């Protein structure tokens, strides 16, 4: 993963709102027009955050799931008018095949949006957002996150310490026995260590005042501007997805319609989904021109 995109300098609340909206909109659109737009934007965003290679990898990996969903639908859903063939005495219809395929693609899209959410909304920001309202749950989450690397380190220590004491035979029973002993060491160690920490936190006055956060994210004027932009875009996209400008009906017969308004709204929807990329690219171009200007000025002064 490359360095943080400029987009994630926004206030965490805005980032939460944005990434949740992208996923929920994808979940709500079975219309192939909006689904395709969302998939395209998800692929673009994913390759923007993680690189093209990984985007293609996840896409190819999840594509079979779409086919499985299509097969599942075909086998148990016999509605629809266009019968393709008969399988085990029941009809296989084009409608249910397409429906299943589209839901599979939708799942894939939602999945990619969730991954992108991970990049934008780091755990630190998540805790900043919800930690003050729910201090105990935030502390619990903090403790758990801290315990992961600590536990790995402790397992390594326990293994080293017990290495010479244990039989090194490859017998299954011995391995289980050793593993059980390691885990029980780990359990005691983590528990007692954690409880000591918790007690000393309490002794130093944890929980007396409001919970604070390591990093502060003030809500600036820039965030107000973006909040406004998000609201406009969300409204237009919701109008597109839940409105009747473009209708896709699967059963009983395939029916698709889209008017000119649907296309205009779709353009807005797509812009909303690729906002982080747009912002990054625009600022890159601006940086490029600014640098060029400076270089030109230098050249002139040399001459």
């Amino acid at each position, binding site marked *: 993963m490359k360095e943080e995109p400029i987009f994630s300098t926004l206030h965490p609340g805005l980032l939460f709102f944005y990434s949740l909206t992208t996923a929920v909109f994808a979940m709500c659109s079975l219309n192939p027009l909006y689904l395709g737009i969302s998939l395209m934007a998800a692929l673009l965003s994913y390759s923007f955050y993680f690189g093209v290679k990984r985007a293609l990898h996840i896409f190819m990996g999840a594509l079979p799931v779409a086919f499985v969903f299509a097969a599942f639908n075909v086998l148990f*859903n016999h509605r629809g008018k266009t019968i393709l063939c008969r399988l085990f005495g029941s009809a296989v219809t084009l409608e249910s095949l397409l429906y299943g395929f589209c839901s599979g693609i939708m799942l894939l899209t939602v999945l990619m949006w969730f991954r992108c959410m991970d990049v934008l909304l780091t755990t630190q920001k998540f805790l900043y957002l919800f930690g003050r309202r729910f201090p105990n749950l935030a502390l619990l989450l903090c*403790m758990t996150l801290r315990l992961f690397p600590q536990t790995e380190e402790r397992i390594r220590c326990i293994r080293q310490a017990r290495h010479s004491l244990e039989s090194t035979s490859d017998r299954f029973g011995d391995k289980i026995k050793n593993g059980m002993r390691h885990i029980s060491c780990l*359990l005691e160690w983590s528990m007692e260590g954690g409880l000591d920490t918790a007690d000393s936190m*309490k002794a130093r006055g944890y929980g007396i005042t409001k919970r604070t956060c390591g990093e502060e994210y003030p809500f600036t004027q820039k965030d107000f501007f973006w909040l406004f932009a998000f609201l406009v875009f969300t409204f237009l996209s919701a109008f597109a997805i839940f409105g009747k400008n473009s209708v896709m009906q699967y059963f009983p017969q395939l029916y698709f319609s889209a008017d000119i308004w649907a296309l205009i709204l779709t353009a807005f929807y797509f812009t909303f989904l690729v906002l982080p990329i747009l912002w990054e690219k625009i600022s890159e171009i601006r940086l490029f021109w600014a640098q060029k200007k400076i270089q030109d000025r230098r050249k002139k002064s040399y001459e």
Partner: protein
Amino acid sequence: MKRASLLRVFEAAAVILLPIALVGSAFLEAEAAAALSLLCVVLALTPFLLSFENKKPRPRDLVPIAVMSVIAALGRTLFSAIPSFQPASAIILITAITFGQDAGFLTGALTALSSNLLLGQGPWTPWQMYAWGMIGFFGGLFYRAGFFRKRFFLLLFGFISGILFGWFMDLWYVLGFIRPVNPAAFLAAFASSAWMDVIHGISTVLFLLLLEKPWGKKLYRIREKYGIGPEVKEK
């Protein structure tokens, strides 16, 4: 106090209403069923989390929950090569038995959340949080009611919970992605995952047999030594 009892009512409502809401949304053929059913599950999770927040636990009350869920999550990732063979359910059950149903619920929910940090988050995370949370919640509740006095019933509960977990996780894709939802679709989904669910149940029983006695003893000792857990608090 009043708020606590109100949240208890909400908890009970969440347990009872969730299946009704899910099945209802399926048979009414609501549009955007995937988003709707996810919303239902998230709503069902909230009263449990809120009632934990409302109780104002001491920092030391959180330690067993965090430690056990990390061990469960690591155990799940350790065995993730074998599909649905994992010790997480058993560990959650053991925690619930020792530290009570609320700790059990949180351990379950946190296990799902944190193990998906390693295995990949997705729309299924809230579903898993709820399913594992319920295993912990009912495990603790049944233990306090004295159902597990015979060890056989604990193992039986472990086996059944493994299968019910699988069925609940089938729901998330049947409700969201298969249309129309009819009993045949449910049955097909349950049948196609039956093998996995049985493995999950068996692995839970195996890990309960292996871990319940030694870990139960250890956790009991920690509970008594540090005064954590439901019985101690009431004094």
